[in-house]
């Protein structure tokens, strides 16, 4: 399939309240094209809770249950159980949450839902900080990023590896994505949808955020692609335990093909405080991540 083959139906409507250049709403657009009409979204406190628009209207063309910050996995479990009790089989329940609602406050409910083999898809759109509340540090914020709670020194710890945490739950499907590669994202959501009945499927989308990352809003796709090209964000899927690098990331297994991380970092105001040593540390972290990936591929 080419990009022109994506369904024409739109479930992300005009009039939504996303910022210009929002990576999250762009991702949701592709996600809902892949999922189609028979979808119920459970959305906790996150940017999308605002983006969806104000009562009594909605900018999202499928049913949405808004939920408390930490409760997406649990509330989705309830919807899934009710569907089962009522014998409705053709509806896909999807948790759609930010990185804070996934990697931090919501990790317990998500882990519980996955361990119980809850039949749903959980998608984390990761903009790498608490963006909706004004750019505070999260467990998914990368090393060195300045946020409003790491305002001068920047974050001193690396990003939490959420997809691998989910892989350790031995769920049928884990994948990473980013909206710079819509076809890859679309196909991964389709794959997750096809596995209905098999348990929890998890997709983690790196979702560039112009105001939070401090870059020009026209550069969202470029940021998304640079994250992959520098090897900072690795696109892969783990399908029934089988690890597979995705097309756009394949060639970056070769370190010489990767762009230096600086090319990505220098375009973003959140990294303005980085010293040369910090950049070295980020490069070391990226190379280390890839060594682990290479080991996994060897073991396969």
């Amino acid at each position, binding site marked *: 399939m080419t990009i022109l083959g994506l369904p024409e139906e739109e479930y992300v409507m005009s009039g939504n309240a996303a910022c210009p250049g929002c990576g999250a709403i762009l991702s949701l657009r592709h996600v809902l094209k892949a999922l189609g009409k028979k979808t119920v979204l459970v959305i906790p406190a996150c940017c999308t809770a605002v983006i969806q628009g104000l009562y009594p209207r909605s900018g999202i063309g499928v049913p949405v249950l808004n939920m408390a910050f930490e409760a997406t996995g649990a509330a989705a479990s*309830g919807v899934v159980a009710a569907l089962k009790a009522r014998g409705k089989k053709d509806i896909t329940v999807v948790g759609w949450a930010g990185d804070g609602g996934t990697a931090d406050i919501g990790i317990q409910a998500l882990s519980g839902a996955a361990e119980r083999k809850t039949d749903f898809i959980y998608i984390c759109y990761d903009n790498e900080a608490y963006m909706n509340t004004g750019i505070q540090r999260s467990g998914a914020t990368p090393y060195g990023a300045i946020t409003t709670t790491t305002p001068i020194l920047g974050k001193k710890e690396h990003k939490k590896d959420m997809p691998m945490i989910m892989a350790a739950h031995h769920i049928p499907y884990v994948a990473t994505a980013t909206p710079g590669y819509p076809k890859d994202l679309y196909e991964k959501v389709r794959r997750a949808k096809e596995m209905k009945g098999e348990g929890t499927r998890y997709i983690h989308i790196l979702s560039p955020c112009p105001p939070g990352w401090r870059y020009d809003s026209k550069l969202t796709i470029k940021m998304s692609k640079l994250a992959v090209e520098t090897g900072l964000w690795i696109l892969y899927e783990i399908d029934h335990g089988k690890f597979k690098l995705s097309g756009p990331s394949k060639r970056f297994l070769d370190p010489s093909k990767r762009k230096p991380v600086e090319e990505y970092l220098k375009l973003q105001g959140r990294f303005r405080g980085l010293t040369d040593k910090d950049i070295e540390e980020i490069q070391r972290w990226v190379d280390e991540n890839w060594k682990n990936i290479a080991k996994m591929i060897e073991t396969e």
Partner: protein
Amino acid sequence: MSKIIITTGNYSAAYAAKAAKVDVVAAYPITPQTSIIEKISEFIERGEMKAEYIRVESEHSAMAACIGASVAGARAFTATSAHGLTLMHEMLHWASATRAPIVMAVVNRAMGPPWNIWSDHVDSLSQRDTGWMQFYAESNQEIFDTIIQAYRVAEDPEVKMPAMICSDAFILSHTSQPLEVLSEEEVEDFLPPYEPPFDITDVDHPVTHGNIVWPEPRGDASVGYMEFRYLMHQALLNAKRKIKEVTKEFEKKFGRNHGDLIEKYKVDDAEVAIVSMGALAAQAKYVVDLMREEGYRVGAIKLRVFRPFPDEEIREVAKRLKALVVADRNISYGYKGISATEIESALYQLEKRPIILNFIMGIGGRDVKPEDQRKMIEAAFNIIETGQLEKEAEWYGLVR
């Protein structure tokens, strides 16, 4: 056909959930609630109960799952105690604001630290302002009957609010009493299958539940946030009427009445009445009988429903009394017993008010014997005689 068995308060709650044919149960274990959900698990695994059971990883998730199930059209049930209930606090607000008619069995247990698994009512009374209806049962039969009644009230189109049915740890939860278990058929006649006001899984008519509402009506919205909250308040006021109707109908059908909002016992000619909640209300009636034999003009009031609060009902009784003994198995630190403050507030508008003696007792499961309740009542008669109320609230039975 119904059958009579001998069973515990907790099993009574489990039998009620089964009889109410709940669709989804989501629960997490905590002492002393555990045997409720163990019994339900057994019912389900034996195939005697057709419900989806979500074995969640916390009480917060239990309530979130119940909310998800309820908006997706299922009748949802859970049970908890103390720390489990207080962990749910955020989701209790979420459930009532979702207008999800979830019913929950609460086995009242003291809050830690220090750890204590015995009864007091601080856990549930701390949830007073969450929008949940609160019932307090005095017997295992009342636990069973009230769970059935609560679904009827909660699911009523004029109510659509959740309800908790509270019972005392161990005093009821682990104590066996005779229980008439109504059959599912008998119950279904009284409690028809749940009809949700909307269904979040209706993809042909997609709705968004819970998105942002401004303080003022704005744009296309004809109402603001405050109107939604007024509707919740109105719903709980409607529940007062519905509880009365439903208990009456229940009595007609099944021959039992545990009181509606309150239960009055021998108050018509009384000078003094003792007000209590839960198991102590049963013992209070026994004490009233003993003292009446000795000529005391005393009665008892059971606060069966704490929210919506029976203010008119209490006023109606209290205006004829000289003194009210309010026995609180709880404390609002820095003030007094919680039901005493509510009752005083309800009586303030009366021209002639009874004296109110508030006793804080039975905290953390400390035993309250009939002679203790008798002493509290005697104290009220003394005060009527002397006209001197020394302390508005007294901790009864403190070791000093």
